């Protein structure tokens, strides 16, 4: 059973976002990585590029499928997790930790608060999987 930490915020496209000082760290949820299966390739934006809430910022590929990654918030990309180039499976192994994707300088520091909390996201997943 996938877990959804309380200190994270969630999108309906199955990304999570976590405040870290003035930045926001973004990844995909345990449910998302389970659904994807073995992650074999991650394509992330360049540091310094801007991303926009609700629109694709990258691509994640499993053995079978190609999926877009959607930005939970708008802002500027401050860091990308380069270790995923050589070890994309980290996203499966530790989706909330070492498998993080990008760190964003938010355009609006309050935007993250509008995302789903853990309980709402868990409800969404349950409705979807039945």
């Amino acid at each position, binding site marked *: 059973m996938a877990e959804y930490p309380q200190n994270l915020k969630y999108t309906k496209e199955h990304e999570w976002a976590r405040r870290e000082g003035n930045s926001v760290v973004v990844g995909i949820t345990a449910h998302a990585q389970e659904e994807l*299966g*073995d992650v*074999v*390739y991650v*394509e992330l934006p360049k540091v310094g590029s801007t991303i926009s809430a609700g629109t694709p910022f990258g*691509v994640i*590929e*499993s*053995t*079978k499928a*190609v999926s877009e990654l959607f930005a939970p918030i708008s802002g500027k990309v401050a860091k990308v997790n380069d270790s995923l*180039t050589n070890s994309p*499976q980290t996203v499966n192994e530790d989706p909330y930790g070492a498998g993080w994707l990008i760190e964003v300088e938010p355009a609006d520091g309050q935007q993250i608060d509008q995302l789903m909390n853990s309980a709402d996201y868990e409800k969404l997943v349950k409705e979807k999987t039945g």
Partner: protein
Amino acid sequence: MPRQTPLYDAHRKLGARMVDFAGWEMPVQYTSVIAEHEAVRTAAGLFDVSHMGEIEFSGKGALDTANRLLSNDLARISDGQAIYSGLLNDRGGFVDDVVAYRFSTERILICVNASNREKDYQWMSQRAVGVEPANRSDDYAQLALQGPKAAAVLQRLTPTDLSEIPTYHFAEGKVAGVPSIISRTGYTGEDGFELYCPPADAEKLWFALLEEGREAGLKPAGLGARDSLRTEMKYALYGSDIDEEHTPLEAGLGWIVKLDKGDFIGRLALERQKAEGVRRKLVGFELTGAGVPRHGYRILEKGNQVGEVTSGTLGPSVKKPIGMGYVPPQIASEGSAFDVEIRNRPVAARVVKTPFWKKQ
């Protein structure tokens, strides 16, 4: 409603993720595609391939009847042997790719792709001269036991001496008490067997094999691993790499075409194509840039489309992004370079020797 194989309940019990494949509800993975792929390369994997169909020609003249429908030559093999063959249309394109089993000159059993069961039966019924085909698809379940430890595991469950069954040969015998056709064939590049048995016995055979192989590292394996394993071998998948518009000569499968065996459907077209030369060839390539090639991606040369990717994945054993695709003969030789368009960007690729995977 998708159809279910006799092993549907077994898959659910094992926690498989099910997907629709050619109208069948099939396990795509039990735990992880990569782990199941690795199990087949290093120990053994067990696949349910009961969705595949079987069409039988039985009676006097069965071999001749089947031979006129197939591009390979059943007369060149012995009883107890199987051959990979094309079932071709008049243009030489694949109606299907099949494995034909020669029990005798009077009994030929043809294993066909799940997606083509009904089409193939219709096709053969309309064109068979001599013996009428029978659709036996619902009479057989099929399990594929594949991997370096497959023979040892299977031998413990059958009195049939497996050392007497070379590659692409078969025998009838009992496995775990279940009457089976034991065929030393597969779709993974590893040693292994395909077992045809009555559907009512499929679950018994399935769990007997899993139990017997547990210590050896045998795992149930899904369609995901089946696809990555066959891709590493450059084995064609019907509907992806070959179809009615592509011929065996274009697909690099000239060896399954025996133009000198006598008449068969597609022969004239292939003779002509052989004389004129093919305009495209199915090659195996490796991405030298970053990304994963996928079915349908465009192949570019100097920015212009010259071909299309038919299969691609990140090979779990070769640990590289690999793919297959049709390209003009000028860029089909080993070392030739072209680009694969991934999300509107050209990514460098080069033609490599296949199979991609060589046994260690």
